[in-house]
């Protein structure tokens, strides 16, 4: 065993330095030089202030905005560090609900959300992504159907015509890559930024 020790020790140290320091640090330097905005997290600024990242969803509760998907992320309870509190779209602690298909808690949550959504749009079936929590809790997107479902509510809150809003939404739809990969989607933060731009005109 002893004659194995020198190669083991030397290779461990050398390969650690190579793959654990040189590689990530060199890649940080190169990536930062070629794609500075993306390497820093695709941050969006408005009036000189960071309002979020184009890849990370954020919580919208006002009727004046399109809402994203339910988010199951939590944060530590300031009163008791061993407990957690719901904190939707906490981008410092990503997580899904991890509720299983026969979970009573999941069934109750979805039932309540379906009822709340249908109040905006009576009689229409609710797009499934609008009432299910995403895997990361930070999903920035919605399906086009789930966005269009919210048009009547936003239209009322903003006093904008539904047609105008639908046009805005359709301009924001990203199709599948080459028509094949992924799913059609709308980035909710980008849509709401465009919506604010519309209101100020």
């Amino acid at each position, binding site marked *: 065993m002893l004659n194995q020790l020198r190669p083991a020790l030397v290779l461990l140290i050398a390969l650690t330095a190579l793959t654990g320091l040189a590689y990530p640090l060199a890649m940080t330097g190169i990536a930062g030089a070629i794609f500075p905005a993306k390497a820093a997290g695709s941050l969006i600024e408005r009036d000189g202030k960071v309002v979020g990242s184009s890849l990370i969803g954020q919580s919208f509760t006002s009727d004046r905005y399109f809402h994203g998907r339910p988010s199951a992320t939590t944060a530590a309870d300031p009163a008791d560090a061993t407990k957690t509190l719901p904190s939707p779209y906490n981008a*410092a602690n990503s997580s899904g609900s*991890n509720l299983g298909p026969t979970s009573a808690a999941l069934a109750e949550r979805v039932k309540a959300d379906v009822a709340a959504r249908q109040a905006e749009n009576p009689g229409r079936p609710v797009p499934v992504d609008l009432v299910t929590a995403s895997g990361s809790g930070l999903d920035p997107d919605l399906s086009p159907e789930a966005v269009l479902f919210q048009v009547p509510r936003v239209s009322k809150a903003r006093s904008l015509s539904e047609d105008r809003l639908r046009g805005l939404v359709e301009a924001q739809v990203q199709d599948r890559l080459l028509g094949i990969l992924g799913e059609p989607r709308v980035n909710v933060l980008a849509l709401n930024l465009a919506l604010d731009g519309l209101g100020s005109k």
Partner: protein
Amino acid sequence: MTINGWIQIALFCAVVLALARPLGGYMTRVFTGERTVLSPVLASVERGLYRVAGINSAQEQHWLAYALSMLAFHVLGFLALYALLRFQAVLPFNPDGQSAVAPDLAFNTSASFVTNTNWQSYGGETTMSYLTQMLGLTHQNFLSAATGIALAVALVRGFARASANTVGSFWVDLTRTTLYVLLPLCMALTLFYVWQGIPQTLGGAVEATTLEGAKQTVAVGPVASQVAIKMLGTNGGGFFNANAAHPFENPTALSNFIQIVSIFAIGAAMTNVFGRMVGDERQGWAILAAMGLLFLAGTAVVYWAESTGSPVLNAFSLTGGNMEGKEVRFGIVASSLFAAVTTAASCGAVNAMHDSFTALGGMIPLINMQLGEIIVGGVGAGLYGILVFVIVTIFVAGLMVGRTPEYLGKKIEGREVKMAMLAILCLPLMMLGFTALATVVAAGLAGPANAGPHGFSEILYAFTSAAANNGSAFGGLSANTAFYNTSLGLGMLFGRFFVIVPALAIAGSLAAKKTVPASAGTFPTHGGLFVGLLVGVILIVGGLTFFPALALGPIVEHLAGGLGQTFAAGG
């Protein structure tokens, strides 16, 4: 299920198949010590490493020496990682002020990364400093992957050689795999991922003010460089808690596609390496065909189950299948495909929460792992895993016709079959034994977040994932406790090394044998009959072992869900 969905799956399979031969050819050159296109740059680095480490690259090792080198390297790596986790609070590159990792979690995490499992009892962005992520975790991602590949190559040499004493040099295999295969591919992949939007920065978390005026803390970090090796090396340990579901680890449909391709790329190419090194590429394609059949069957079931959705939720007025725990940019097909790939390949990264899959959709990932991670499998580990099953298959075939079985001109005798069975039996012992323990002690029963059969599935999934060195989870299980950290850590170590050592013993014993020329009575091992027999043996062994446990978890949950029954936690 949609036409587009099947096209996405078919495109994935086509790309993996197209890559297998060129990548296999390149890797064969690396393992046989020939010059490659990268030699002008890397040969001097390689020679320098050997000189400092006192390694004679021409000197090969007996299988026992090979195993000892591998173990010595892992013991040191384990200790170094443990120390790093315990001391991260006082070390540099810690902009978010993460504190020292607790002893049981540090043990679990060290075992996890050293064994290529990358089970995570912790949330990355809330626990690990950037230094730990790079120096500890990124680095072990490379070395555990390189080790898996090295061991597979040693076993292949056992088949390829005749009357030989040695199976190669562990140090040379490890170094060449890291330098010539993993590092260059990862550098290209890192840049691609940053282009797709994955962050790569040493700056701390960003404070944002949302449109509604709330504060949002956005965790970032040197993510892309870790994601590149996490997928290519079938490690699967995420930078963030939500792993590849997190938009910063997997921002687009294209990044997702490249990630699943890179999970399978090396594992599929290893079957071609095997074929080339034993002098008949058809032998490699036959093994890949068996893997492919099992993979396609599993993928079809997950995709069908997730598209159909859960009867409990379908009772409400909803459109579409099961989207709980899935991301919109991937949708149902790319999430189902990812789940099948990551569990077939011992990767363990997830782009959707398996815990929230339908009962049958979540059962396939379980089965993929329980079969022993041989459907493409972990880099290297998949190949030596399936070769162990090949030996059993050949043995069964030999019993049927009453001949001493042979494979590639080697007589398969008592010693090889015993070692193969030892490797095969280790996994169910760890998976089912620890699950049984956890369901009778209070510390184990405290873990599941879901009630009823799904709670049992959470426990079964955890120990299955650990022993199979997969690392994915039914994430509802509260695994960051002394009981789970310790038992899962042990499961990972046994599941890795109690397969590796018998596999190396087989390599040594085969290498020493003479080659018998093929005769009219030799069972051809490159045709459909052999592929069918191999698939049959894998399914029968797996089915007989795990059906009772699956019946208690996903199967009963599927039946209960069909009747609309739900289970309340804490009730």
